[in-house]
């Protein structure tokens, strides 16, 4: 069953044609990793999946609703899609616990007491049991990103979007965040779309790797197909560049 189905998606800012006809399907429990050079449109693609970017044309069907249409109650769709950002975007005015509790309480999903219990449990899942009362500013980057994952999970989504979740982290923090993501994929069977430069993560966790360049999907396949038997020239050159380093 498909959770997300993108058809002929275009996104254009003035004369900058960022996405030029993307077709993509994400199935239940699938982990899709999107790779590609910077400026290729991969982050824009991810952000159209919960309408943080409005598509210029094409359709984005999530849970059977085409969110590219006008008049869609996007808030209801977003409740079921968690998103994790490159720069964490934790709410600076709230404590760690309240960051996690805000949406479920405000949207009437949980009582305050249940939200506290859930927040503590989720902090346990991401390995930050004792940070419930901590202020956001006292956390390291890696800790912030794990709180951000817990916050997204608090709405009990069945799709998670990750937008370069480890790019802003110090190298020694990357492992912790990736481990949490692996746990999500393997133990919970979460449907995930991940934009990342972590090829190791892609090889290990991805069911499918999608290579985006110049606003279209150039090639997609299993990690083995993409990394060991690339066909597309752009993909070959991209891989040679990142594997050189």
């Amino acid at each position: 069953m498909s959770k997300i189905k993108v058809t002929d998606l275009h996104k254009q800012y003035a004369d900058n044609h960022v996405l030029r006809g993307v077709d993509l399907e994400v199935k239940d429990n699938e982990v899709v990793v999107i790779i590609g050079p910077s400026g290729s449109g991969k982050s824009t693609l991810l952000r159209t999946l919960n309408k943080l970017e409005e598509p210029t044309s094409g359709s984005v069907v999530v849970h059977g609703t085409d969110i590219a249409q006008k008049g869609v109650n996007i808030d209801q769709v977003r409740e079921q899609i968690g998103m994790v950002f490159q720069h964490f975007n934790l709410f600076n005015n709230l404590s760690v616990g309240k960051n996690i509790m805000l949406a479920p309480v405000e949207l009437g999903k949980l009582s305050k007491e249940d939200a506290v219990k859930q927040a503590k449990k989720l902090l346990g899942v991401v390995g930050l049991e004792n940070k419930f009362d901590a202020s956001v500013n006292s956390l390291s980057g890696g800790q912030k990103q794990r709180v951000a994952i817990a916050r997204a999970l608090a709405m009990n989504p069945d799709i998670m979007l990750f937008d370069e979740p480890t790019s802003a982290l110090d190298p020694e923090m990357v492992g912790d965040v990736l481990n949490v993501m692996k746990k999500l994929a393997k133990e919970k069977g979460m449907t995930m779309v991940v934009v990342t430069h972590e090829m190791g993560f892609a090889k290990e966790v991805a069911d499918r790797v999608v290579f985006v360049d110049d606003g279209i999907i150039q090639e997609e396949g299993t990690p083995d197909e993409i990394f060991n038997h690339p066909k597309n020239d752009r993909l070959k050159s991209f891989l040679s560049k990142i594997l050189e380093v």
Partner: protein
Amino acid sequence: MKRHFPVIRWLMVLSIGLVVALGLFSAPIKSNAAEKTYQIGTDVTFPPFEYANDNNKYVGIDIDLMNAIAKDQGFKVNFKPTSFNGAIQAVQSGQLNGMVAGMSVTPERKGTFDFSTAYYNSGVVMAVSQNNNDIKSLKDLKGKTIAVKTGTTGAQYAQSIQKKYGFKISTFDDSSNVYEDVLTGNSVACFDDEPVLKYGINQGTKLKIVTKPAAGTPIALGVKKGTNKDLVEKFNAGLAHLKKNGEYKKIMDKYLNAKKNTEDNHSFFGILKQNKTFLWQGFLQTLWLTIVSIIFATIFGVIFGLFGVLPIKFFRGLSSTVIYLFRGMPLLVLALFIYTGIPTLTGTRIPAFIAGVITLMLDEGAYIAAFVKGGIESVDKGQMEAARSLGLPFGKSMRKVILPQGVKLMVPSFINQFIITLKDTSILSIIGILELTQTGKIIIARNLEGFKVWAMVAIIYLVVITLLTWLSNWVKRRAKI
């Protein structure tokens, strides 16, 4: 769609409420008494024609005469003290029925005013500092600067002979400033109506009159051309009656041949003691005006500031326009425009206080809108994206995440704006609101002790601002912002 933009709906309700509230305040004032009440503009800083006496009651030739005529003819007078120019504009806009302010009948004014029978004939004289023996006649003025009060016959006379005698003119809004300018030596001489200058000298101003009265002009009651005929008729009838029964002469003698008032204590504390009730009332009016204006300006500013960050083009455009318009306009111009311009357009009178509050609401509100908008915009864009990505609607995201962070950035600007608002109320003295500055002007017009009275007024402002700052800091601490 249903829960899409509750914030917007909420804001619209608020702004409509605001407009309605203002509308109610500015509803036309009807006088339904059997005796007709006339709104009469006057200057109250123009002794001996009109000024506030030792008990800070309005007296003077114009006031006493008008009251006597009203009594004689059976109507009521409600004096509206503004500046001379303010009164002229208020009469022209229909805010006032007429004005008595030692007003000369000139051909120019006859274009827009109808005048009563003249009740006095005034002549312009020149005065110099008592220890100035160089300036004895108009011929000695070549290359020098002289001082006049705007809108007076003295000013017109000076202009008419300026070329011939080759002097420069400095203009002021108050007689006391004119005299002060001569005494300090910035100007060598001043021109004013003879009775006005004589009064000043009687009060101890160290000036002396060196010319004979010239350019005698009749002084009369003025109404807007083609209106208030009944008022002019009653005034003329009353004046004739008073001249016959001798009351007219009594009033004239009382003010024109007034002996020097030696009982007044002109020391700092003497003046303070004598005027403490008057200053206190002015202070209360300033405080009241500030508080009411701050409340309205904050509501106005927050609404238009929030409009500026809504995801709808129309509201953002509205916000930018309002900020651009009212932040770009000098407060003085805005005050005069609202007080005299709006009634001209709508035919509805606005009380000066309401006009003042609207002025400050628009001007200070525009500044508040600008920093509310700026404060919200300076919150990282990612905060909104994160909130929206969780399924929180725009309004909730704004209230729970963006505003708490934005408000923190706005607090210092708010405190600053409150202090500026308090100071800006002084500008509203131009439309005759009896706040602290206008109170000071009126006291000075009588005793001509500009330096001492302005010192008192300045100290009162400083005390209030200090208190306001303490209060703000206390609130800031309490709110742990």
